[in-house]
């Protein structure tokens, strides 16, 4: 995958897109887990949410670099 792409002639890093996509992905997961009550069994819910986001984002980033 290219590291950067041209959006209306401005160079935008692909990672930025990955960031937005992971935010969307995390929001969906968050809704689902909230509705299922997963967070009631987690010690530190917000840390848990942050970690999930980091995992998703890192996964996307690695996929782009490869």
């Amino acid at each position, binding site marked *: 995958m290219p590291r950067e792409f041209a959006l209306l002639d*401005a160079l935008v890093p692909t990672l930025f897109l990955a960031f937005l996509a992971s935010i969307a992905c995390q929001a969906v997961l*968050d*809704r689902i*887990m*909230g*509705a299922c009550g997963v*967070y*009631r069994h987690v010690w*530190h*819910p*917000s*840390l848990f*949410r*942050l970690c999930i986001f980091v995992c998703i984002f890192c996964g996307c980033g690695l996929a782009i670099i490869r």
Partner: protein
Amino acid sequence: MNAAAVDGRKARFLAGLTESSAWARTEWWNWVFVFKTTLAALLAMLIAMRLQLDQPRTAMITVFVVMQPQTGLVLAKSLYRIAGTLAGTAASLVLVALFAQERELFILGLAAWIGLCTAGAAFYRNFKSYGFVLGGYTAAMIGLPAAMHPDAFFGIAATRLTEVALGILCAGVISDTILPRRLSHAITGNVRSRYTEFIRFVHGSLSGSAGRHELESMRQRLVGHVVSLEAIRTAAVLEDPEVRVRSSMLRRLNSEFMAVCTTFHSFRRLLVRLVRDASPAGEALTALYQSFDETLLEMANAAGGAEAARQTARRIAAFRLILPSRVAAIRSNLAGGLERRAAVELDTALELLDRFVREMHAYTKSYARLEENGPVVPTPDDVVFAVPNDPWLALLSGARAFFAVLAVGAFWIATAWPQGISAVMNAGIVSALFATAPEPSRSVDRMVFGFTCGFLTALVVKFLVVPSLDGCLLMAACIAPVLMAGALLTTRPNLAGIGTGGMIFFTYCLSPGYDMQFNPVDTVNEGIATIMGVAAAGIMFKNFLPPAGAWFRRRLTCQLRQQVVLACFEPHAGLSHRFESGAHDILHRMAVVKQARDGHGEHEFAWMFPVLEVGRAVIRLRQDADAIGLSHQLAGALREGINSTARFFERPSGRRLAAALAGVDKMLEAAAREAQPDSCTSRSRQVLRKILASLHLIRSTLMDEEITLAAISAAPSGGTPHAA
């Protein structure tokens, strides 16, 4: 060592322990906030330096603006802040593209944009308003410097955006993961304390020992609870998946609470009057009410837990079962001995008590369900917290910001002041930032003071300390104490403005960066320009229709009365909730203004109870009237009477009050004629009895001497506004 000495030492030790635990309860979270703010700001600075962004200070200032003691508020603010920042950047792009060569037109366009955003901020509430504030503020921050270098606009805008986003992310992550202070705790606290407070209020006010003043301040506190719960709920929805699931239940709880408060007040007023008149109905009612009060009070001692609340709900249900028989007993006991007026009064009071018990039951049940984290009960969608917006108020705030920016811009162009750009920028930022504050001129005063302190500190640190430091970490260590001092100030309500101003301006002047510029002349000039810009905005706030001034207060009272007009004419669906939430929102704003003026402005609240009671009664009346087919005559009388009541609340005067009273009397007569035993079925007689009760309630409220006074003093042509 004798026993007495040991005991004494033990007592001292215990006293010290309780003292320190009290300190820990209040101060602990303040200090946590201080450390988190400092940490987030330094983190933002170090990352920005590592990424070699132009101005790490923008990221740091963003942290100070966004940081809040409670987590959800930060996330919610961040979301809207990013949206506002994007809008502001887009606006400045358009402005630079259009007027890069024409400074005058550029200033005009910028002033218009800031004015628009300020108007939007004053029009909406909570976070939407905050998004508008930031739209204006970012346009000032990005547009002006970029207009000086139009060729580099894209680069400048992209870096600023990156820096702002970095600040937002740092603040969000730090406040969410390190010792988070959840909004759901605040919600639980709010719901619980309000419940116990209300029960105590219901119990305490029966004895009649609470004066009118006390009742009013109590009611204002409850209004504050209602509005703050709604504000926290909107923020918490973004923060906490658990709260999101329960959000509809919270909305419903709030709605039920507002209803039960109003009903209780109406009932209480009637009861007090009956007792004062020493009528036999008063005695009977008091006895009846006392037995209900005992039902409630059992758990007021053990308040809090879900189990207690559920038990209370069960007891209220049991009371509801026996209520009809007791009401019938009272009716038959007193049937012969009452004249017509007193009989109607008794009917009204019984109807109100029945409604109060019903609403209290619903409220307690919702509360118990919320406490025990039980299954979610779907709430009808029309329970929405409606906020009445005032376009005039918004337009005037917008005009104020517009003229502030324009005036400073004109000064800049006329004097060819090299640092004028900072002055214009800050005039714009401050006009946008404080447009929604209850007493902006005072906030701006504090801000100017804070800016000055921050400025002087920055001079000392930048030119005496920083040059001898080596490396980012040392610099971070050096500015941390200053930031902590500022953050500590922001935790004190009275000094918050000084703290925020100090931190922001300290960072602004220090301008830590990858390669720092040490130019004392520039720094001092910039600082003076900034403070002048802020002061110019403050002068505008003081002199151009101040938000706590008489005009705004009159406007609020007028809006409050307008709610009754809505209750008279709006369509039925969800109306009672719309009415209650609208009135509560306005009352809350009035309370904020009152607080900003150190408690002056008591008389604005004279309309609180009349508006709430008449509005609710009119809504009931309309609902009941639609439930059965009315005779042509009664329907006509109702329409006429409601119209005259609405006219009175639209613009009160002695004449209109008389007209409204006459209208209500006519309605009462027509309804009483219809309710003759021989002319209708038992079901419609029951509804007619309710209609009579509502009418009587309206009438007794309109007869109150308070409202007469308020009507006379509100009338513009009333002759003697200060007759009281």
